[in-house]
């Protein structure tokens, strides 16, 4: 009888969970916190809930839903030191599914190949309206300033001695506040750090409603936050009005793709797909069916699998170590510095310009579209209910997507072939 009970106990996950001295409980706690933020606090629920659920199901011993990270030679070893695969790069996908489980099949097929990030970018492009950017072109430059956090944290991470330059670049790209870009860059430069970087990038994106107000509160005065952009526009009207917005919006993605492809070819897989999605949207009814597919079916499917796979990379072995903690802390600094550098650039511009700009427009220079703009609009209307800055914020917010993809392109082209 005792033997039967013991066998039943060994069959359940309890035996491994108890033997692991509470490390699994930390992961469950993390999953529950993320689920709480997504469900109750509504922080990016479309992303955070799949990620959180991925974290949860990946951490049940015996469930085979956690993603195993391969080393540079493709060797996979589990927590007990048992070799699960000698070289995963030589394994077929059905073999991966059979030997390592369903989640590893999805991860190595969709994420590790770099397939999903550009697909997500295509969907983002289809959901992006470049109208606010085109109407406020001069504000777009703040999308460049807000990339400073990427490079600042790159230097700090290298100086710490904990990360080599490729790992530091992957850590820094979290400051771009763009999940697909962070994943894409990390796959190219430091694939072994994909799990903590993806989770840090998406978690901080989901925490935009907390991080932006924090940085804004530290750097901006009430007087600055009360700057009314519409009144400034009336006082100092901008020159050009668009007589045919539809034509401009159709030509714009084609022209931007061409220019970026010529200057930073390594960014084309992101920018090209972003602009392709946008072009299908802007053409209108002729490509309506394609637009509908990429902005709904494909985008939603990609988001579900991306979220679950990213969450499933967060196993006890991958998460509870000092490198991950370094990435979580460094990612926060990258994020904060990006917001701060956008705000500082607005402040510097205001010193030399008669037409004042609300510093919140600088804060939205990081990607995280459109959440960053919505959060900044809420901040401005808190100080002045009539001061809606959403459209102005969207200008720097959308250009921030282009900016972070270009920054990623620079990092990839400089570092990808570098031997460490």
């Amino acid at each position: 009888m005792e033997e039967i009970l013991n066998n039943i106990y060994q069959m359940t996950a309890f035996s491994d969970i108890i033997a692991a001295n509470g490390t699994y409980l930390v992961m469950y706690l993390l999953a529950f916190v993320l689920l709480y933020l997504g469900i109750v606090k509504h922080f990016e629920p479309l992303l955070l809930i799949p990620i959180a659920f991925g974290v949860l199901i990946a951490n049940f011993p015996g469930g085979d839903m956690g993603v195993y990270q391969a080393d540079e030679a493709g060797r996979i070893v589990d927590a007990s030191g048992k070799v699960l695969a000698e070289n995963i790069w030589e394994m077929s996908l059905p073999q991966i599914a059979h030997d390592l489980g369903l989640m590893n099949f999805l991860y190595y097929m969709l994420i590790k190949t770099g397939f999903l990030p550009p697909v997500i970018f295509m969907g983002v492009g289809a959901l992006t309206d470049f109208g606010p950017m085109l109407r406020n072109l001069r504000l777009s430059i703040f999308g460049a300033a807000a990339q400073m956090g990427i490079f600042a944290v790159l230097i700090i991470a290298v100086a710490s001695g904990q990360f080599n330059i490729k790992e530091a670049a992957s850590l820094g790209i979290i400051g771009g506040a763009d999940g697909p870009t962070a994943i894409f860059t990390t796959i190219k430069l430091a694939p072994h750090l994909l799990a903590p970087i993806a989770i840090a990038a998406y978690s901080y994106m989901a925490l935009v409603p907390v991080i932006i107000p924090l940085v804004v509160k530290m750097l901006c005065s009430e007087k600055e936050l009360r700057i009314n952009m519409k009144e400034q526009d009336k006082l100092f009207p901008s020159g050009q009005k668009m007589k045919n917005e539809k034509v401009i919006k159709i030509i714009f993605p084609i022209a931007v793709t061409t220019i970026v492809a010529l200057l930073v070819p390594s960014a084309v897989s992101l920018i090209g797909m972003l602009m392709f999605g946008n072009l299908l949207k802007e053409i209108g009814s002729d490509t309506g069916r394609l637009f509908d597919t990429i902005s709904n079916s494909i985008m939603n499917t990609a988001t579900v699998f991306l979220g679950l796979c990213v969450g499933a990379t967060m196993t006890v072995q991958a998460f509870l170590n000092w490198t991950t903690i370094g990435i979580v802390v460094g990612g926060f600094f990258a994020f904060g510095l990006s917001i701060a550098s956008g705000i500082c650039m607005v402040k510097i511009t205001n010193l030399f310009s008669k037409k004042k700009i609300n510093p919140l427009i600088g804060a939205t220079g990081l990607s995280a579209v459109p959440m960053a703009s919505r959060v900044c609009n809420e901040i401005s209307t808190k100080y002045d209910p009539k001061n809606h800055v959403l459209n102005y914020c969207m200008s720097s917010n959308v250009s921030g997507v282009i900016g972070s993809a270009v920054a990623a392109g620079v990092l990839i082209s400089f570092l990808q072939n570098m031997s460490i």
Partner: protein
Amino acid sequence: MITNDIYGALQLLVVGMVTVFLVLLIVINLGKLLIWAVNKWAPEETVAKKAAPVAKAIESIDANTKAIIDATISQITGGKGRATKITKL
């Protein structure tokens, strides 16, 4: 090794930020050029004005409320949009 990496990181900071600013400056000026060219050569966008009659439902809304709704729509759409049907929920 770390000194070399820091030097490389500083180099990336300069090259990266210059590239990002350069690309976005080009995108901004490209946008301006496009607007100028389209304004000059493309026909002006015609907004199809629907002559749809205002639904009867509007009549049941008092004039003050209707004026507020009209003003809001006008502000949001820059004067292009107008209410064609207002229904009480």
